[in-house]
């Protein structure tokens, strides 16, 4: 679950690195430097999401679950960008709170 939220955040930042989505979600374009930063942050968060998944007994099952959370999170971000792009910042805020709570509780 924690992994899901971190990967969700990761994908959000990835998506923001693409100019197509910046206008819809943020109402403005980002500079190339900001785009690169978004991409790195996104990749970092995706890698970070592996950690809560791996801390289980069977690494085989853990990797499958991690792959599944990556896909589910990406689909969720796509849905938000398609139908409620303005809601993306709210999604980020909610996800950050949830991620911190879950990580602290684990």
């Amino acid at each position, binding site marked *: 679950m924690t992994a899901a939220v971190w990967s969700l955040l990761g994908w959000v930042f990835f998506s923001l690195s693409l100019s197509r989505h910046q206008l819809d979600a943020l109402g403005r374009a980002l500079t190339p430097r900001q785009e690169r930063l978004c991409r790195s942050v996104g990749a970092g968060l995706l890698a970070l999401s592996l950690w809560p998944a791996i801390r289980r007994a069977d690494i085989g099952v853990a990797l499958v679950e991690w792959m599944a959370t990556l896909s589910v999170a990406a689909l969720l971000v796509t849905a938000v*960008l*398609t139908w*409620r792009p303005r809601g993306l910042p709210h999604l980020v805020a909610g996800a950050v709170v949830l991620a911190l709570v879950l990580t602290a509780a684990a």
Partner: protein
Amino acid sequence: MRPDGRAEGWRQAMAWLHTWSGLVLGWLLLAIFVTGSLAFFRHEINAWMRPELVQAGPSSAATLALAERRLRELAPDAPQWSIRLPDGREPGVQLAWREPAPGGGRPRFETRAMDPATGRLLDPRHTMGGDFFYRFHFELRSAEKSRWIVEGRWVVGLATLAMFVALLSGIVTHRRIFSDFFTFRPGKAGARSWLDAHNVTGVLVLPFYLLITFSGLMMFHTLYLPAGIAAAYGAGGKGYFEELSGQKPGSVQRQRGTTARPPGPMPALALPAILGQARAHWPAGRVERLTIEREQDGKVWVDVAAHEGDRVQYRAPSLRFEGVSGQFVQARDVDAPMARTYGVLYGLHMARFAGPGLRWALFGFGMLGSAMIATGLMLWVVKRRAEAGRRGAPPPGAGQRVVEAFNLAAIAGLPLAVAAYLLANRLLPVAWPDRADWEIRAFFLTWLACLFAASLRRDAWAWRLGFGVAALLWTAIPVVNAASTPSLSLWATASSGHWGIAAVDLSAIAAAAVFAACAWRVRTPARASYQASPAAPLGKPRVAAVAARGGA
């Protein structure tokens, strides 16, 4: 192949490959994906289709003794017994024994279901249940006992290879794979929405598709590629199969296929003690099955196998005991590198390790894969109609008409047939001897009827009719269920905690809603006067106006 004869680029060649490897076997692949996704929940569908088993009580410490006593009553002289203990998804005890066939043919297995609480034999209606989807998925099973098993596996193998080629060529062809990553624009005219849908369903779930396709292809490697095995292990490849199943060469051998019975009845066994030792050996795991084998000289071996869902790698480890004394003999597990690789691929595909959350996710990915194939098939038609519309070209040729008919029969007809199969389970009389085969025939006859109807009409009206009838049949499922087997109605199963069975009814309602939405969203040109807004309801992009205009 460029029309002007010039050499084409690599991407264009891959696009051609992607189109044709996807199109030629696309309808079969759609069926394989849909039935495979259903097979993830085959135990739940089995439970829904065998209502008589819902009375099974909880298992207890006495269950194993009850099972042994029942087997002693049913088959005291049998050379092999098998007891499968209940788990979360299969609540009954499965008893099985080997009967030598009359006339010295291959021995066959008899199975019975037993109530774990009382030891009473349960007598479910004769049906293939969810196992039909499972077996259709990899061998195109068309009846309960079919002669075309190997042929079916070959066809599925060919289709899987085509799927793999289509996946890889699709990745290569997709030029803006990263910038298009999250792009989905429903409601655009022409092929754009369909292409977006095809890309999004394709790319975001790509790890799943690659894994499932490759592991599926590898599962029957002994059938497709026997030459390498023969070269390394000799003509019969016997040593290979032993390594695959974890038998060490020269270890205690099983006698297979003996037709003579060992003398006398099964001696008294120390099964509870054996189970206790096995549980101590695997403190965090579950025991799935005990297999009791008797040899000609009277010795009895008991193999206790761990639950296959306890790890990814197939096959589960097992412990061998002496049946009469209960003494531990050896622990068995696959250890040849080849067998472990195969075991991981097999285990990944079967996903027996998946808990409820992951299982629903995998089912969802399977449905998205079906959507990917369906949008791809629609894309082929929509693009050609768009081109024809622009150039004022002649009406669609025979090939395009065939593709349109097959699209309708596969995308709307297959879900219809699945609903018909489930309805047949409730509507056919319980006492009919052939009812299992007739349920399967209901599936195929419905599907064939859809194909026939699609050959007559393929326009927007036909699509709306197809989706509408599908929505109707799926709505009927919980209704017919409640009417014919009240103990399994949605209300009863939800309030008694049988969530697996309730999920089938709930999914039927959800499926009906999806197909109703699809029927609603199919638009003819006269009605297509609005632009889809971000607040438009979720659903498939509307069939392009051009597609409907060019309809038959």
